[in-house]
């Protein structure tokens, strides 16, 4: 497909382009700054400068991600107008239109941000487009609101624990982009909510940031929400908007989203906070470890360093979800991977990804000198007896693998499920 993306240089936009390219789509980036990337075309686009634009006729879908996040008044109308122009441009080339909205979108939202989103949502649905409402986006590079929260957690000596604590429904940025691409194919409903079905308290979310992104153990001080409301009232709406108080208060007005149905329609399994939060910079080391395990499993011997490096590079280049969360025991004893390899009990997404990676390990291993001797059976003396023994051994091992897997079923079925390892 040929996809046009606004907000291409933003937090979600960058990840989306990467994922879209991996999925084989051609991308047209619509942004102020040029996007220089193989396979990505660029066209100038500015949200604040709402002028009609012409899209190439072969565009199949327009994903509108650009948003005005500065607290400037007067931009409301421009943003709405820009969206309408995009909707028209998409319609004129018969492209699908997807609008990235917000959980705050509501006709009487406390912030202008939420009200504008709601108005654009209406316009989108009227034109037959799709609306995506993400929960609290996190993970990957520290941009957007997630970036702000990371900075806050890193720098404030104490953190507020609001009472009563507002609930957030997190969604990893890479899961969100998968949902964006999936909704083009599936179109489950006109408004699609993408976030963890069960919310967690903001305090728990901040704690997760602290654990995953910093080495701090934060101190929380209870702050009554009532106090904030009174302060905001006293300061007046202009000042409290300037201070960001209004945006903070909008957190407490968030409506809980029922996301389970939409996630099911999109066949999307969200990763748990614990595995999504750690910085991806740590990924290389974990990928090397994962490669060593998978290649040892395939080769029956310790793989050469260059081969493991190749594995890590291959996964980095071709896959979205970075290191696989393998159980600790498997990392220590790669032979135990046999219990997970091809197992039907474990979580579907986890299994598909594991299948791909083991298959990649087989192909990479075969192309190495170690692989040549194992796969072509260089030690073969041409004896029929030896051949029989090896084949019987392989079959016996397979049988015992299946038997042990059957016995361990209750334990194995937990792998990847409930997000324990994914």
């Amino acid at each position, binding site marked *: 497909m040929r996809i046009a993306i606004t907000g291409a240089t933003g937090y979600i936009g960058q990840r989306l382009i990467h994922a879209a390219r991996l999925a084989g789509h*051609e991308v047209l980036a619509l942004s102020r700054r040029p996007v220089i990337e193989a396979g990505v075309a660029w066209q100038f686009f500015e949200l604040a400068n709402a002028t009609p634009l012409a899209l190439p*006729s*072969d565009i199949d879908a327009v994903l509108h991600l650009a948003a005005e996040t500065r607290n400037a008044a007067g931009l409301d109308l421009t943003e709405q107008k820009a969206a309408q122009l995009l909707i028209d441009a998409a319609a004129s080339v018969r492209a699908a239109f997807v609008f990235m909205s917000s959980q705050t979108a509501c006709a009487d939202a406390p912030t202008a941000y939420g009200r504008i989103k709601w108005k654009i949502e209406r316009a989108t649905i009227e034109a037959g487009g799709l609306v995506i409402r993400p929960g609290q986006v996190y993970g990957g590079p520290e941009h957007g609101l997630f970036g702000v929260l990371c900075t806050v957690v890193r720098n404030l000596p104490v953190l507020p624990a609001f009472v009563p604590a507002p609930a957030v429904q997190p969604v990893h940025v890479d899961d969100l982009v998968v949902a964006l691409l999936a909704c083009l194919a599936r179109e489950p409903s006109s408004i699609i909510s993408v976030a963890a079905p069960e919310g967690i308290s903001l305090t728990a979310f901040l704690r997760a940031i602290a654990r995953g992104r910093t080495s701090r153990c934060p101190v929380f001080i209870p702050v009554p929400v009532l106090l904030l409301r009174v302060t905001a009232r006293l300061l007046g709406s202009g000042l409290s908007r300037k201070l960001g108080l209004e945006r903070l208060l909008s957190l407490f007005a968030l409506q809980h989203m029922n996301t389970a149905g939409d996630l099911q329609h999109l066949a999307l399994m969200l990763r748990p906070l614990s595995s999504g939060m750690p910085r991806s910079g740590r990924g290389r080391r974990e990928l090397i470890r994962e490669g060593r395990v998978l290649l040892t*499993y*395939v080769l*029956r011997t310790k793989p050469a360093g260059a081969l493991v490096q*190749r594995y890590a*590079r*291959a996964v980095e*280049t*071709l896959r979205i979800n970075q290191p696989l969360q393998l159980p600790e025991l498997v990392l220590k004893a790669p*032979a135990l*991977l*046999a219990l997970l*390899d*091809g197992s039907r009990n474990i979580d579907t997404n986890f299994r598909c990804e594991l299948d*791909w990676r*083991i*298959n*990649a*390990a*087989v*192909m*990479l291993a*075969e*192309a*190495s*000198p170690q692989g*040549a*001797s*194992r*796969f*072509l*059976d*260089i030690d*073969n*003396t*041409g*004896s*029929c*007896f*030896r*051949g*029989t023994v*090896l*084949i019987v*051994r*392989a*079959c016996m*091992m*397979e049988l015992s*693998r299946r038997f042990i897997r059957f016995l361990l079923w209750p334990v194995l079925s937990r792998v990847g499920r409930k997000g324990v390892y994914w």
Partner: protein
Amino acid sequence: MTGTQPVDFDVIIVGSGPAGVSAAFPLVDAGLRVLMVDGGHGARLVPPTGQYLNVRNQDIGNYDWMIGQNFHALSQADAVSPKLRVPTHAAVFEGFVSANRIVADNFVAVGSLAPGGLSNAWGCGVARMTDKELASFPLKPSEMYTSYAAVAKRIGVSGGYCDDLSDFFGLDEWSHGTVPIDNLQNSMLMRYTRSRSALMQSGFQLGRARVAVLTTPQTQTDRQACNLCGTCLWGCERRALYSATDDLQRLHGRQGFFYRPGFLVEQVESQGNSVAISGVGTDGAGVLRARRVLLAAGTLASTRLALQAINHRKLVAMQSCPTAAFMLWLPRHLGRRHEPAFGLGQLSFTLDLGADIQAFGSLFNTTGIPVSEFARHVPLGKRYGVDLLASLLTSCVVGNLFLPGSLSNVSLQLDEDDQLLIWGGYSAEVEMLMKEARHKLRNSFIKLGALLMPISFKVGRPGTDIHYAASLPMSAKPVLGQTDQFGELMGTAGIHVVDGASLSYLPAKSHTLTIMANAERIATHVATNMVLIDN
């Protein structure tokens, strides 16, 4: 638009694959000015040099040609055929579907923009259609005969060996010696002679495969003879396997032949006495004119250009052979070591299914195919799967099976955006026929000492065969969306379809030689006519 536009060439051939080059020779021979264009770009990786087993053991650039620096093999992990994963062929298949605006549903659409087209990566199977098979073609079988002879002699065909498939292939009079077959298949052939009559009675016949491979060096070109190096899957460094690039090289330097690679044709349009092709080349968009245009861009691409030329937006049928693959195990050979062997079809078989349906297939040595290609189908943990295959594969033979194209159910349509939509499918009886074929193959091969491995018999998705044909069939009384006996497209003038698209019928046997012979025949007619007009 009038017919007085000056033309740049006498004939433009779109595509440089087997059909394109076969059409070029008679035109150039007649002294016409001929331009050949293709959408190829980018250099190809060189295939490995030397004996396959040595190259693998000594790790001579293995990673580069088995996986590829850009992880080509891994990025194509889900592709239907091992060939599509081979890094040395990446440039052959790349970009075809999107450049030609093809959208396929339940159909594996494959084609090539590269110089030489799909012949860079084909199985080299060759066969002549019998008079009976040519019955639906609007021509006398004798008209094809001379073209078959010309093409077979030019490309070099091996397998001339008087056996039960001599009549089926019909090529022995032009063939040279056979490529030696490996021990496994030799033992099967020996056993076949013993139980021949019983097998023939059940409708199974076995013989040497007829393949476009040289067993003696070709003196006019620098193609060398096959030395059983076994790297066939990755490309033949000695050029013993025929590729249309060999003919392209021969055509270079011939008086009146012009070649423009990297020119992607987007539209063909008849304008009075000339035909214009417009497209995008390496130096931007352009229009070229000729008195006649021959479409040889591959069935799918040619069909789209042709339907566009006549603005035909109704459904058109296409044929594609339902296909299956299977593995045989020869227990008596268990524990054997890998031996250097020819990597393409060694033995071929025909199988009669019910009334009037003949299936065709070939058998292959497993040495030159990566073990990972088999491991993905073995229902064992990968560690034990590799254990098993490393010991088992040396006593195994793999085979493929094709059914006639008339059993497919493929529709094409040019949509309003000039995209070619493809809907694939098989006729209802295919499921039963495949079951019957599996049953008959099991019973036949067991007499040859080979067991059809359980669960190894797999029917491919529609389009996996990459034998696409008969979307614009030649007909004695052509209607819109068909072609006349010389492949000339109805509803317009001066546009001939010379590739698989204009075949009238697609049997189970390999069809490339027929495409080439038909292109040669049409081009000979076009050349004669044009020279007559000129004089």
